[in-house]
């Protein structure tokens, strides 16, 4: 018994010693709010991590923690990575903001990257993508393709990013059909396939023949497929779930950004910045335009090219729901107005939850 115990302790000691050494130059670590298996937000971030591994091979080691709840658990997870020798840590949910800043103070030599937040420090950069650019395009497609002139929008929570998405979608649609109607349903969840499916059905039943979503599951598209209406993929290309129903998808592609930033850590040129890129930089990617007549696909491609060329979808004239002017003709909204958007444009058939 005693010798067995000794042997076990010795084995543990060996294991402990063995796992400490690592050959990589840089360790890049990722914290996800959901399971990597959500096939949505966290899944796409993990695709970015895999791209980093593929790009740098043995030079970079990666690690991740999934389903880390926002709050004290997040602080501990971030601190764990900082202590375990991570050189750069990506915290990929808005709710990690204050915890990231807090841990970053304790570890000035570690680089931190916080997604979707607004607080930065010398060693904390922020990054986000202009998803609303993609939403403008799908709004145009929706208006072209809809027979009823009504689209349904399954929304998660009334944060600025979601509100901006709704507005961009409707502005795109109105550029094609000024009378286009948009029905919004708030489901108060990022992820509940059953509830999202029910919301999609309710919207179809109320006359929407285009379904779009700012929630993460593929369920609404499956409903669209079943009911013979159409929709758009969210976060990842969901064509496998709706072969006939998906027109395109707004894909979050974090890979280029992650590769770029890890490269900068390798080169020693990393700086704290606030990155907010979109279609032009390849951080937002449109999936292939399918199930569409040629002219509509061409229109979408033309708009995509225009946005890549630097045109901002939130360019006036924009009228708020209450009738006041948000932007004069030809004047684009500034970044702050888009990032903090808390009003609807005219034509949204909904009251913004306050």
């Amino acid at each position, binding site marked *: 018994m005693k010798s067995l115990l000794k042997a076990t302790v010795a084995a543990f000691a060996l294991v402990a010693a063995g796992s400490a050494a690592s050959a990589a130059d840089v360790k890049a670590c990722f914290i996800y709010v959901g*399971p990597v*298996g*959500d*096939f949505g937000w966290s*899944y796409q971030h993990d695709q970015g991590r895999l791209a980093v591994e593929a790009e740098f091979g043995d030079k970079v080691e990666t690690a991740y923690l999934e389903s880390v709840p926002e709050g004290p658990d997040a602080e501990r997870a971030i601190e764990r990575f900082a202590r375990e020798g991570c050189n750069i840590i990506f915290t990929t949910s808005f709710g990690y903001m204050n915890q990231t800043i807090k841990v970053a103070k304790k570890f000035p030599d570690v680089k931190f990257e916080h997604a979707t937040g607004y607080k930065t420090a010398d060693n904390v950069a922020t990054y986000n993508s202009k998803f609303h650019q993609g939403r403008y395009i799908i709004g145009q497609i929706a208006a072209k393709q809809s027979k009823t002139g009504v689209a*349904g929008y399954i929304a998660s929570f009334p944060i600025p990013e979601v509100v901006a998405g709704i507005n961009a979608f409707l502005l795109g649609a109105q550029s094609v059909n000024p009378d286009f109607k948009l*029905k*919004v*349903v*708030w*489901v*108060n969840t990022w*992820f*509940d*396939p*059953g*509830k*999202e*499916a*029910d*919301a999609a*059905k*309710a*919207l*179809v*039943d*109320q006359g*929407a023949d285009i379904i779009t979503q700012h929630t993460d*599951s*593929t*369920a609404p598209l*499956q409903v669209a497929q*079943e009911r013979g209406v159409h929709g758009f993929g969210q976060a*990842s290309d969901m064509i*496998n*779930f709706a072969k006939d129903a998906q027109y395109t998808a707004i894909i979050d592609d974090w890979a280029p950004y992650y590769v770029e930033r890890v490269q900068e850590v390798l080169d020693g040129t990393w700086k704290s910045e606030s990155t907010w890129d979109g279609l032009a930089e390849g951080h937002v990617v449109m999936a292939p335009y399918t199930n569409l007549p040629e002219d509509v696909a061409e229109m979408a491609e033309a708009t995509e090219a225009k946005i890549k060329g630097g045109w901002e979808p939130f360019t006036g004239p924009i009228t708020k729901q209450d009738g006041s002017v948000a932007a004069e003709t030809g004047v684009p909204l500034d970044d702050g107005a888009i990032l903090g958007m808390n009003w609807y444009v005219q034509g949204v*058939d*909904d*009251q913004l*939850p306050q």
Partner: protein
Amino acid sequence: MFEAVLLTVITAATPLLIAAVGELVVERSGVLNLGVEGMMIMGAVVGFAVANQTGSGALGVVAAIAAGMAMSVLFGFLVLSLVANQVATGLALTILGVGFSGLIGEAFIGVPGLKIPSLYIPGLSDIPFIGPVFFQQDAIVYLGFALVAGVAYTLFRTRIGLVLRAVGDNHASAHALGYSVIKVRFMAVLFGGACAGLAGAYMSLAYTPQWVENMTAGRGWIALALVVFSSWLPLRVVAGAYLFGAVSVLNLHAQAHEMLNIPSQLLSSLPYLATILVLVLISANRRLTLVNTPACLGKPFVPDR
């Protein structure tokens, strides 16, 4: 419009109905299994996996039922053979099921699922309104109704049902009469597991044909509430499941219709508040609940010898 709403309600209610009717039998035998959610999610993942590998929805459903039963064996062994605490064991079953299903399901993320086809009965299915609502559902919906009818009949019209209720109401006298309390309860627990597994299969093969972690999203708990709501009467489970389905679906319709301008969080909490209210109304009627509540619910039984 009404027809469409009704169709949505039927899909929303079916998994609740099936899981609840299974748990009703379990509770009628005097056992409280809080692990419905865990058994359901295991049914969902195994059903999806098998259907995906074999290409057969029917095999998937059978496998899901088997998975639910396997989980319930674990529960039954602990609470019946080893007299472990039922509440704690049920919770452990849920934790285990959620974790284990995630592990099994990792290979099936992002894989499109197989949808169990709806039945089509020439003639009947074409009748306006009645056709789509009653004669164009998938097999599990009908199976759900058959289950309720079967359970209602068996519980109150057969000897097996009599024994089951006797065991749940007074295990000591049932034992004295020579019935094996443990065996009856084990059968009931197995039945509950099978139903939860089937409900899970409905989630991953019919409701939203795909696998994602935690896809049952608390429906197992709602099923538990429905059993109390029904005051342990099978036909009331149907009413409860449809009421709950209707409240949650109408919340979405109300929003899309722009009828109301109240916080969406309040609307989202309506189904839960409604459940509490109905629980209160039903259980306040003491005469009615006392008649139907299994007197030995949650109490362990060890035969003396």
